[in-house]
């Protein structure tokens, strides 16, 4: 299995959701102990504070982390708080679609870990 599928590389090089959000409603930050990289998810909710209207990420990471974070930000846009809470690690892997080697699983799941940190603050 090629871990570096064309669309993964493409997303990692040109992520659509990679930008810091100055005034976010919620943040989730994690450190990847494997390499020392950091990832932060920024959430902005609608007026009722029910739905995500904008989700972006910041920090530095490898191609896998960047592509996975970008996919997650795209997927969770418009979702409710409950849907954020219910999103599982299995959902993250399904969304990513390209199984990494066991030693790199942590990279693909890093955005999910950031999400867990964020929803813990809800």
């Amino acid at each position, binding site marked *: 299995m090629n871990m570096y599928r064309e669309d993964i590389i493409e997303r990692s090089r040109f992520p659509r959701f990679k930008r810091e959000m100055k005034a976010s409603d919620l943040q989730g930050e994690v450190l990847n102990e494997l390499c020392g*990289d950091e990832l932060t998810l920024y959430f902005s909710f609608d007026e009722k504070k029910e739905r995500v209207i904008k989700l972006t990420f910041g920090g530095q990471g*490898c191609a896998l982390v960047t592509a996975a974070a970008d996919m997650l930000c795209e997927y969770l846009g418009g979702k409710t708080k409950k849907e954020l809470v219910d999103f599982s690690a299995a959902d993250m892997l399904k969304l990513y679609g390209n199984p990494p080697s066991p030693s790199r699983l942590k990279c693909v799941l890093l955005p999910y870990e950031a999400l867990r940190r964020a929803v813990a603050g809800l």
Partner: protein
Amino acid sequence: MKKLGISIRKDFPIFARRSGAPFVYLDSGATSLKPTRVLDAMNEYHESYSANVSRGVYEMAEQATNAYEDVRATTSHFIGGKPEEVVFVRNATEAMNLLVASFGGLILREGDGVLLSEMEHHANLIPWQQLAKQKKCILHFLPFNIETGELEWDKEAFSSFLKERKIKIVSLIHSSNVLGTINPIKEIAEHVHEAGAYMIVDAAQSITHMPIDVKDLGADFLVFSGHKLLGPTGIGVLWGRYELLDRMQPYQSGGEMIQDVNLKTSTFADPPHRFEAGTPHIAGAIGLGEAMRYMQEIGMQTIRDHEKELLAYAWEKLSHIKGIHLFGPNDIEKRSGVISFVINGIHPHDVGSFVAQDGIMIRVGDHCAKPLHKKLGITASSRVSVSIYNDHDDIDALSLSLEKMIKAFGL
């Protein structure tokens, strides 16, 4: 025909076992592959005379004891010094912890200094941090030059620098596991001794790449692991000058390290046994002894020459990769064992995973040297390391895979 490289792979069973797929092992700096001779020696112990050492009165126990004790002599042939100056430990990390606790504990007083460098492996850093906290000592660091990868030290003022800062112990990595730099230990040690301080050498990386003589280096102590030296894991060596070992307290206590025991007090055995509590890794020591004999038969200078040629070839090949930055000295006389690098726009972990898909094994990460990476302004790097079984074909495969990666990433 060349003695090393492709032609010596027949001595290492793993090449035949993994012959079905590309097998390009460029991670010997993490751990080396093992020759059949080493594995046979360990099996022979387990199959033919697997008694405990230093206690039995029957023939098989004597055979085991002799085989184990003989490795001290083999080690002293390998690195100089005397057999009774060789202490068996688990690895270089344990040797360092033993030294910090027993020798650091003996020598250092509140306000004294210990000199390390910015390129140390965590094994020669964190134990000192712990002791410094406990004893209220001060850690000092020799900086390295980011461009050249060499230590920066003022030769003229070094002895007075050591005295002024009350530095009692200098502990340095012989050859950097990231930069590859061979540090001028011999020259530094002369100043260290002039200042009345002690010299500890972390030879975990260098031991497998070049001839080493503890007396010539001017070391008071030298540590290394067996598994980077074609030997098994779980066995390492602490070599120390006997008169210093003799002044040190045990690091661990229990069986095999005593002279006499009463209910409330005990006396301890002489070195090296004072520092080897409990049943040691007998098979490991025997395997390590065989590894050292194997390497000596090849000749450490022959090994150094082979690796120098190979590293020069690798440096040249890798320097043509687009966006690459190679760390450490370009002068091959000042480098051993490894070449670390980063490639603009591609994370080291992606480099490692990408080439792994082509059967190429390199190390990525901080290589247990976080302060070094912080100084370089990066969190991780990729590292190629070589040994006697590596050849141009390995470097060519890596170079080809990196080119492929650059193309795939559109750089």
